[in-house]
């Protein structure tokens, strides 16, 4: 019971953070990181865990708008990166998710000497996607949607760039299966890619995903990110 209670609390915290990010993406405000003022104790632990789940997207509005993040948001973010280094045997998506957070920290926290920001760090490898079927590829890329950022290259983004048709098929599959979060994540990647089939109807597709699944702030976040990035531009 306690575990499921904690899990529900964490889910709620992730949803709240996602809502904050959606608001910032829509309004151009700072990410406020509501409810994470206290970063010590139980509440702080919960906040850090929630930030870990949300990953680099917590500070996406500042990456896209090239504006500084609020200090308290940056503090929680940095603590999360430091608190959860991936284990040696971690799954690729865990390693990449952490790498994405470190990269965001480097972009926004560069002056902080001695922090992970100063460590350019070796990029993980993306070999696990080499033979990925299009459904698996789409699932993995949707989980790693925080890596879909204009102007930012990495091995995972290069895989995505090389397989726009497979990712488009995965988007259709996810919508058909009403997996709105996967569809939204895939749609965000597709927004940045060349070679997406015109017949996909990506823009209306993302609007449909928002209509059907947008009451979940994590879905809304991906749709809003895609919208914001459509204005910002594709990969360099």
């Amino acid at each position, binding site marked *: 019971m306690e575990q499921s209670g904690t899990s529900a609390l964490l889910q709620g915290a992730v949803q709240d953070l996602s809502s904050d990010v959606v608001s910032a993406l829509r309004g151009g405000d700072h990410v406020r990181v509501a409810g994470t003022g206290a970063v010590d104790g139980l509440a702080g632990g919960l906040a850090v865990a929630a930030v870990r789940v949300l990953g680099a997207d917590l500070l996406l509005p500042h990456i896209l708008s090239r504006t500084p993040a609020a200090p308290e948001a940056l503090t929680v973010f940095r603590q999360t990166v430091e608190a959860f280094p991936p284990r040696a045997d971690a799954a690729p998506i865990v390693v990449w998710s952490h790498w994405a957070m470190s990269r965001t920290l480097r972009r926004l926290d560069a002056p902080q000497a001695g922090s992970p920001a100063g460590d350019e760090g070796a990029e993980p490898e993306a070999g696990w996607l080499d033979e990925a079927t299009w459904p698996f590829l789409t699932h993995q890329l949707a989980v790693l949607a925080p890596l879909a950022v204009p102007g930012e290259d990495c091995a995972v983004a290069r895989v995505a760039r090389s397989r726009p048709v497979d990712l488009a*098929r995965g988007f*259709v599959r996810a*919508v*058909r299966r009403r997996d709105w979060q996967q569809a939204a994540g895939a749609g965000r990647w597709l927004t940045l890619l060349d070679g997406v089939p015109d*017949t996909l109807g990506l823009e209306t*597709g993302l609007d449909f995903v928002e209509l059907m699944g947008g009451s979940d702030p994590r879905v809304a976040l991906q749709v809003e990110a895609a919208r914001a990035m459509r204005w910002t531009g594709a990969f360099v």
Partner: protein
Amino acid sequence: MTDTRLIHTVGVRALEWLWAHRDGFRLEPDVDPDVGFLERFKPVGELALICRVLFREGVAGSRQADLARRLVDHTWRHTLDGGRMLVRGQRVEPLSPIPFEVYLPYKELGYSEPDVERATVLYHRLNSWAALELDPTRRLGMSAFQRRFGLTPRPPEADLVGATWLARTPEPWTVSGHIAYDLTHTVFHLTDWGERPDGLPPDIADYLTMWLPVWIDDWLDLKRWDLLGELLVVDACLPRPTLDERAWEGFAAAQQPDGAMPAVRTMPEGEPDEVFDTVYHPTLVAAFASVLATSRALTQLAHAPS
């Protein structure tokens, strides 16, 4: 690529079941007029259409071809009473397209009933027949059948394609079961049931090449065997069929030991006639998909570098 023997065996077993259950192809001459005498003609017409595909493709084994010939003969002689039931159908409901649609494949297989032909030629002259408010895919099929009959299609097929769902190549994530059946039949009519794959306009072929794998993956996982079978037919109508291994293995595994193909998930229970009415269509579709895919697999083999 999928093992051709697996694909072929699905069709052999389907024919065995259809032959064993041939009495299920039955009309109800004394049916309540409100229900309609013509309601039970559809299975008969579909059987003849698919047996004709089987003869045309020439990849059936001797046992399979023999069963198909006997099934066509049985339904013409017994179910349709040598074509007289089609005449009766045209008398009951003169402008219904159903007797004509059922008659056409029998005519192509060498059967003849002059009264059906006379009525068809007359109806073809009627503006009313050309103006029937059929859905766009059915209307396209009517014109295609008129051409195959030897008549000038009214309206011409080229004028009808654009009104179908598929011709507009819409957002692929909106496809539901109903839309999927519409698009499979559009492909059937455009290609004369797989005879002319080049009857698919290039933009439609490209569209299907792009999105069909998603729909096949989806309806395979949903165990909707009837629709999956139709989608596998569409695959075999494409310029480069995938003959998807996972889909064919799942489809073959769903088939019962006696050759019946359930429509959805597993076999239904009930009275034999009820079971027949539920599974005859997916079993016919299995035979259809099997013969076309086998034919395409052999074509690929013939063109493969040695």
